[in-house]
């Protein structure tokens, strides 16, 4: 497949049709179809899909990657949002779903979905990234020869709308002993993550809508926790219960899967932030440049801490770096699209991007990142990524 390839085979229009009489394709001569109740992409785009995975051959612990290298823009279509669910997607009838808050509170309470839908709702465009996104680049000794989607496709960005947690916490009245919230999902494994109350009072929401419509089953229907900038696993889907406590409950995913073993032999739990990061999506791994000439290098940058300040791009294997254009609006904890024109002269080179956030955090080199952790640690990988462009136009994942 070339850099960006049109999907379908090319039915050559007959060039020898009579010159005098104009020739029109069939779709200009036969009326088209009406709109459907709920639209879908073109039949010629069916290859633009999530790539699905089943972990441990279980068929239960499954996931799906966003096809980043086939998309363009900051909004991820909801049908292509990445997902990872350890116990499958539960089928929850919203009329039977309740949300409970109890523990160190003055008035333990519950709410129906219907009640919550009439509560005050805020909305923002924010990214969601799996802590384990780009893990292949963190742990493989030799860079995998894979696509941007395959390596980096566990990140997406949506407009999330829902109820600020602070309203519900104020309604129950949190007791001063309360420091953490044990947040539990209504899936078959009742997924649990513990979130500091500070975050819930700050900018966390009960997300009810994604990209305008009610969130979908694989994103937590009828409701999910959304903790902007924090690792994906903490944004508890199918949220049904919060217990306000003075300590984290130490859930399974907090024990090892979402903790990091450091090079000084410590086990870091509760590493929440997805740090500043960027990826060139175009061109990217396994794509093919049709010929030398003018291109646009485009990609996405984000930081779980706040806004993207700048993205620098190198098209000469790191010798020089140029600030890319940031496509506005640059929003906090959101995808920022960056672009820069590039004339490819047909010679081999390496393309890289390096993002800086509003607090001056910069993406580390791979070596620097690796130096912080044991070799088997893979979460929160945010090192500079590099794509090798071969003289034949093929693009490959590499380390620099």
């Amino acid at each position, binding site marked *: 497949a070339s850099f960006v390839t049109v999907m379908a085979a090319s039915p050559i229009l007959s060039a020898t049709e009579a010159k005098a009489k104009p020739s029109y394709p069939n779709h200009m001569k036969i009326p088209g179809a009406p709109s459907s109740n709920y639209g879908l992409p073109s039949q010629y785009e069916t290859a633009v899909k999530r790539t699905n995975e089943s972990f441990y*051959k279980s068929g239960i612990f499954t996931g799906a990657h966003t096809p980043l290298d086939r998309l363009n823009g900051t909004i991820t279509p909801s049908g292509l949002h990445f997902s990872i669910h350890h116990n499958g997607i539960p089928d929850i009838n919203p009329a039977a779903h309740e949300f409970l808050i109890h523990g160190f509170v003055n008035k333990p309470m519950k709410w129906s979905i219907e009640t919550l839908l009439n509560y005050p709702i805020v909305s923002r465009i924010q990214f969601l990234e799996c802590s384990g996104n780009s893990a292949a680049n963190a742990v493989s000794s030799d860079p995998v020869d894979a696509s941007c989607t395959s390596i980096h496709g566990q990140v997406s960005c949506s407009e999330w709308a829902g109820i600020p947690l602070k309203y519900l916490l104020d*309604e129950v009245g949190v007791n001063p002993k309360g420091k953490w919230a044990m947040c539990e999902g209504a899936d078959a494994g009742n997924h649990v993550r513990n979130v500091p109350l500070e975050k819930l009072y700050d900018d966390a929401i009960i997300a009810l809508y994604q990209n305008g419509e009610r969130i979908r089953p694989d994103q937590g229907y009828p409701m999910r926790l959304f903790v902007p900038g924090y690792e994906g696993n903490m944004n508890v889907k199918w949220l049904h219960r919060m217990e306000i406590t003075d300590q984290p409950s130490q859930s399974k995913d907090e024990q090892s899967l979402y903790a990091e*073993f450091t090079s000084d032999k410590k086990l870091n739990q509760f590493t929440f932030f997805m740090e500043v990061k960027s990826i060139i999506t175009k061109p990217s791994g396994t794509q093919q440049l049709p010929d030398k000439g003018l291109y646009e290098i485009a990609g996405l940058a984000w930081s779980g801490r706040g806004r993207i300040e700048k993205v620098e791009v190198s098209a000469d294997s790191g010798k020089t770096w140029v600030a890319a254009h940031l496509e506005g609006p640059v929003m906090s904890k959101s995808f920022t699209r960056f672009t820069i024109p590039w004339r490819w002269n047909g010679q081999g080179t390496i393309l890289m991007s390096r993002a800086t956030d509003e607090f001056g955090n910069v993406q580390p080199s791979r070596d620097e990142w690796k130096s912080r952790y044991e070799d088997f640690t893979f979460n929160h990988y945010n090192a500079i990524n590099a794509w090798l462009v071969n003289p034949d136009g093929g693009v490959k994942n590499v380390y620099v």
Partner: protein
Amino acid sequence: ADNIKTEGGTLLTQSEIDNWKLTIYPDGINLPEGSGNAIQGEKIYNMKCLACHGAAGQNGTGPRLVGKQGFIDEKKDVLEAMSVGAWPYATSIYDYIRRAMPHYAPKSLSNNDVYALTAYILYLNGITNKTMNLDKESLSKVEMPNKKIVINAWLKEQKDNGK
């Protein structure tokens, strides 16, 4: 709009709250009555867990349940980098088995079974001995090797920032 005071919640009854003693805390809160040991656990394990997790917790299609940290082969499967043996809290094993295992039928085990299976997994990891009885008193006292090296990175960052 910070002065909004919502009012749509319904008070929970104590019996509704009691239904949700599902989550175990490291100090043993919510651990139920009952007990079990590794000898009992091994039998249940071989019946209900071995098919996925392998004999004695190794070489199954599911995650290995034995060993500490690091890759076990050249594949570098990130999901397999750490096993239950590397978990800092023993109560989490009880909590997780009861809520999520066996994978195809979560919440089908009795409280006694979960004590026995937890005991068996701890025994396989060389943390407890085969005859030790686990119950709500003893389980939270089991010290996991990685307890010593664990850091709450979020609290640490808060402190470093003077909060």
